[in-house]
């Protein structure tokens, strides 16, 4: 699919019907683009602009948010409670991403190399539950892990005593991994499928040992999939609030919970907007650093 796209000439070598058609065609494509572009700019882009504008605003005494030009909301973010919470979210998201990578490689490897004719079925068996309600899946964990849930009553029956799972960072991170690991497995699987598998064999002959083969052959060859997957997991994990809401508590709240509170509980929309903008700026900076680092490395590789 991708290769065909590359080899296809960007314009027909000999335009069959002269210049007029190409003008006509460009007009058609432009007309087709106009409506959806207007929709996305109208709804998505302009709503983002409103968030940025309101982040400089304030809440009136009657509770209504108004636009302004003040930095007070950003000043308010600069305190220990919020900074600690930002750091916690970042830590949870990074740990989630790493755990997802640790799960994705063996799973994708086993399916790609040893799935045989069940490959597609196995991948579908991973994809299907991940597209089914995220909320229900988080709820399922909270029911399983609760103090009177299945896991704890089994532990008590075994004489091991109950363990408090909920309200711990482990539960929240577990929920995030459960929620987003598919976004790591799919790209890693795709890049494993694309790589020349005889390389792994050659690596085994050359390096003797699966670990050294993995680090010197498989990992470099699947780097693009891994880097892509890390982004796809990190982004939603950092903004998540359902996992911390259902599996955690105030001690494990993430940025998402804080933002959600400002908009739907605390009713301080300007402050919530500033938090949202701060998160987006943080994400963009991280993204630029990350993309720079990974693309230079890929270039060195090539």
């Amino acid at each position, binding site marked *: 699919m991708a290769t065909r796209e590359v080899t296809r000439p960007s314009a027909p070598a000999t335009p069959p019907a002269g210049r007029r058609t190409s003008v006509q065609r460009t007009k058609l494509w432009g007309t087709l*683009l106009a409506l*959806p572009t207007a929709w996305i700019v109208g709804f998505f882009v302009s709503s983002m602009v409103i968030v940025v504008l309101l982040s400089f605003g304030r809440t009136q005494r009657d509770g209504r948010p108004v636009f302004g030009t003040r930095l007070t909301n950003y000043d308010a973010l600069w305190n220990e409670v919020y900074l600690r919470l930002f750091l916690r979210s970042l830590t949870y998201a990074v740990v989630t991403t790493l755990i997802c990578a640790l799960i994705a490689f063996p799973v994708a490897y086993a399916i790609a190399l040893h799935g045989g004719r069940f490959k597609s079925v196995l991948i579908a068996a991973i994809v299907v539950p991940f597209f089914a309600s995220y*909320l229900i899946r988080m709820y399922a964990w909270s029911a399983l892990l609760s103090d009177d849930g299945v896991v704890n009553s089994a532990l008590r029956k075994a004489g091991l005593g109950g363990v408090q799972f909920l309200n711990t960072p482990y539960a929240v991170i577990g929920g995030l991994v459960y929620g987003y690991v598919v976004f790591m497995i799919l790209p890693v699987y*795709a890049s494993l499928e694309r790589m020349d598998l005889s390389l792994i064999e050659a690596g085994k002959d050359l390096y003797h040992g699966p670990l050294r083969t993995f680090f010197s052959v498989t990992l470099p060859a699947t780097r693009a999939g891994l880097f892509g997957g890390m982004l796809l997991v990190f982004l939603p994990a950092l903004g998540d609030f359902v996992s911390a809401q259902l599996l955690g508590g105030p001690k494990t709240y993430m940025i998402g919970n804080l933002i959600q509170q400002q908009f*739907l509980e605390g009713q301080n929309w300007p402050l919530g907007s500033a938090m949202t903008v701060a998160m987006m700026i943080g994400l963009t900076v991280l993204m630029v650093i990350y993309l720079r680092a990974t693309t230079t490395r890929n270039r060195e590789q090539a």
Partner: protein
Amino acid sequence: MSRRLERRPAFAVTVTVVFFAWLYLPIVAVVLFSFNSVKSLATFQGFSTRWYVDFFHDSSLITSLTASLGIAAVAAAGSLILGTMLALGLERIRSRSGRAIGAVTLLPLVTPEIVTGVAALLFFTGLGMKLSLVTVTLAEITFSIAYVTVIVRGRLASMSPEVEEAARDLGCTPWQAVRQVILPTLVPALLGSGLLVFALVFDDFVLAFFTTGVDPQPLPVRIYSSIRFGVSPAINAVGTLMLAFSALLIVLALLVPRLFHRKTSTLDLIAGGERP
């Protein structure tokens, strides 16, 4: 393949087996306890369908269910139209502005959902719109366009432009070429992405949570409010129905391209994989 490669790597296979168990454990638990005859979530006392009966007699839950189905249907239709127009335009236009538009339209995919939700909430209230199922639907369409565009573009990229050129040589206008040559070839991709968007929107919680009014609420929002008051077996019944319904939609979305004897399935497009 040599024998060494055929030998199963014990470590990877073990991780995979544990992974599948972990993946399905909570789902199996929800389904199992939805048929529990007592309220306990720890012990299964006996088979019963009382929680399903409760669900179908709860008129407010049924209202939420209908609302969610309606939102998903309208959002799927709207994003299919807009997303396909966008895909056709982006795939064929060769200008710098085209590429810039392409980048902007992918933004909703990489923006954390909570940010989209907050922005949509501010947008609708800023315009003075009352939050309702209409605002939820508008937000969901905006969010879903990118999915359709990505899938349809994938299909367009694998189509040879010669067919379209031939149609043009035979005297079709550009629009006729699109309607009579390109659109029929896109049917599997359109069905697949339509089903996918329907399932995603039907299940979506975050965006619906930020853009919905008080009554009626979409089903996931309604479920979220009852979960916060504690776990209950009735939620297991609703959850089971939702899981079954979305699983069915996704399986259909994955199978549709196969029905049309295409080599690439929706799954390959999602996974970005290629068949050797």
